[in-house]
């Protein structure tokens, strides 16, 4: 297992870069646990100070140290992404495995529901939720809602793998030996599906954090909760670019892009590595 990791780092440049980027971001986010300032308070330090030795990322117009602000924001955004990804993985795994394996009317019903969720554009729905819940829309609720929309694609993927597995010899043996369906799904089929789960995990994180940023920038989330998106919202609110407080916009954007590119590279390289045909193609076969 470890040697696989080592090989990946040494020979797959995308994985290496992705890993480096993500590690930097994660370490940066973890720093927030030792933050000396309370990031929900404002006007603690002199506002609009450019980056300097005292304030590494400068300060924003609300009188907050941008360094600690970004650290907490990163942590919140990442946590949000992870929660959504985990929840939607659980849903898509359950639906996908059940649908593919059990088949019949259960499959038809589940896929019908799946198609509905695919057809409904998530953005207006999220905006609607904000509209009715206003300040009651905290991160957790938003995460739950997004998880409910993030499973359809991957459920279909898992379902097609499950369909293939259903007809394999070892499945028939298990059924013949009297294994119960949940046991078969969990013990026999789950390992086959894990690679898909891992790579879609990261893609899902990208999607949910991106959506959160989009919503926050428009002001449609709880703007008092420091995340990357809300930071940009406040920066826009205080017309940061125009006033000249460029670091308030540029630094969150750079961090966000770095995190995204890192996650994306990891997802792509792991995906490629897991698929043996693409590995062979790299070797020129």
């Amino acid at each position, binding site marked *: 297992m470890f040697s696989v990791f080592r*090989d990946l780092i*040494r*020979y797959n440049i995308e994985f290496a870069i992705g890993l480096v980027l993500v590690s930097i971001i994660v370490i940066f986010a973890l720093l927030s646990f030792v933050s000396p300032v309370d990031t929900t308070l404002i006007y603690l330090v002199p506002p609009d100070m450019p980056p300097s030795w005292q304030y590494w990322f400068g300060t924003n117009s609300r009188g907050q140290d941008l360094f600690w602000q970004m650290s907490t924001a990163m942590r919140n955004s990442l946590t949000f992404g992870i929660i959504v990804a985990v929840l939607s993985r659980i849903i898509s795994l359950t639906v996908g495995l059940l649908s593919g394996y059990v088949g019949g009317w259960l499959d038809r019903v589940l896929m019908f529901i799946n198609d509905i969720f695919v057809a409904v554009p998530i953005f207006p729905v999220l905006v609607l939720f904000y509209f009715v819940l206003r300040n009651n829309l905290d991160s957790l609720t938003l995460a739950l809602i997004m998880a409910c929309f993030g499973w359809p694609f991957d459920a279909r993927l898992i379902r097609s793998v499950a369909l293939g597995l259903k007809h394999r010899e070892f499945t028939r043996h298990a059924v013949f030996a009297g294994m119960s369906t949940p046991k078969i799904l969990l013990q026999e089929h789950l390992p086959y599906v894990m690679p898909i789960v891992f790579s879609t995990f990261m893609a899902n994180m990208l999607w949910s954090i991106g959506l959160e940023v989009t919503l926050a920038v428009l002001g449609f989330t709880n703007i008092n909760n420091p995340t990357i998106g809300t930071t940009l919202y406040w920066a826009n609110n205080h017309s940061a670019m125009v006033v000249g407080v460029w670091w308030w916009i540029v630094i969150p954007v750079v961090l966000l892009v770095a995190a995204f590119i890192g996650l994306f590279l990891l997802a792509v390289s792991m995906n490629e590595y897991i698929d043996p045909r693409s590995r062979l193609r*790299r*070797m*020129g*076969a």
Partner: protein
Amino acid sequence: MSEDLLKVDGLKAYYQMDYFGVTREVRAVDDITMTIRKNEIYGIAGESSSGKTSFIKVLAAAIRPPMRIVAGSVKYEFKGLSVDVADATPAQIEAIRWRHLSYIMQGSMSVLNPLRRIGKTFEDFAKKPLGLTGEAYRARVLNHLERLKLPADVLNAYPHELSGGMRQRVTIGLATVCHPEFIIADEPTTALDVVVQKEVLGLIREIQQDMGSSVVFVTHDMSVHANMTDRVGIIYAGRLVEEGPTRQMFFAPRHPYTAHLVASLPRIGDTTQRPALDGRPPSLANPPSGCRFHPRCPLAIDKCKTDVPPLVTVANDHRTACWRWQDVKPLVAPQVPHGVMA
């Protein structure tokens, strides 16, 4: 000699790979010399991973890096056209493809583009090599389909609308419509049931007799060789170990491996257990020294472990690569299979 259609001389084709810090050289084809004459069916037999598929690919000019021709030549003598695959330009190879040299691939299921009608596929493959257009082209294709006992409206169908047997006949038709002089048939009957097998084999034989082409028939099924081929060549671990007229090879094999292959054919009424070779085919990346068969050979002596036996002519047209070829006896009395011309 104008009787030779293909002359392979000292051919060596290796996979040379260098990735993730590991260098590997797989010697898929290791020094093969042989000739194929006009108007003959030549069988190539061997186990899986013996290198016979790689050899065929070289003959069909279908190898790609990391597989390369490292030494030797593969010279075709078509009517008025001589091409050495080992050092021909792409243009030269394009000129012989399909018109003079064609290929029947293994697995009729997937060799036809599922999104294209058969007629369009025919156009893609055959229009340019035939050099015909319009009515002349159509007439030629329809004529050929008739020969294969395929209805004319198969041209409008999609592959998934045809049965397996029809698809195989279409594939054979595709490969033969240009009347090529050299056809390579790569396991065309594997994975077909016996009834369809008989049809397909009959078809190939008919076409060969009609057109006077040479066919290289690759299969691991010895009974097909007995039924179809004029000469057989046995490939083991990337080398040609025996070659000769089919009847002679079956009744009087001169290599222990051939003896075993022949003995593996089942006979009706025989209740004795088939003798099996122990061990497995060797890895082509790290083959045994000397004669590559020596780890599994019942007749092996010390010399076999160190010296590579050369191909020697032991009878008319019959060559073998074994130090003890005089001691080789058939393992069971071969039963004359039905249908083989006496």
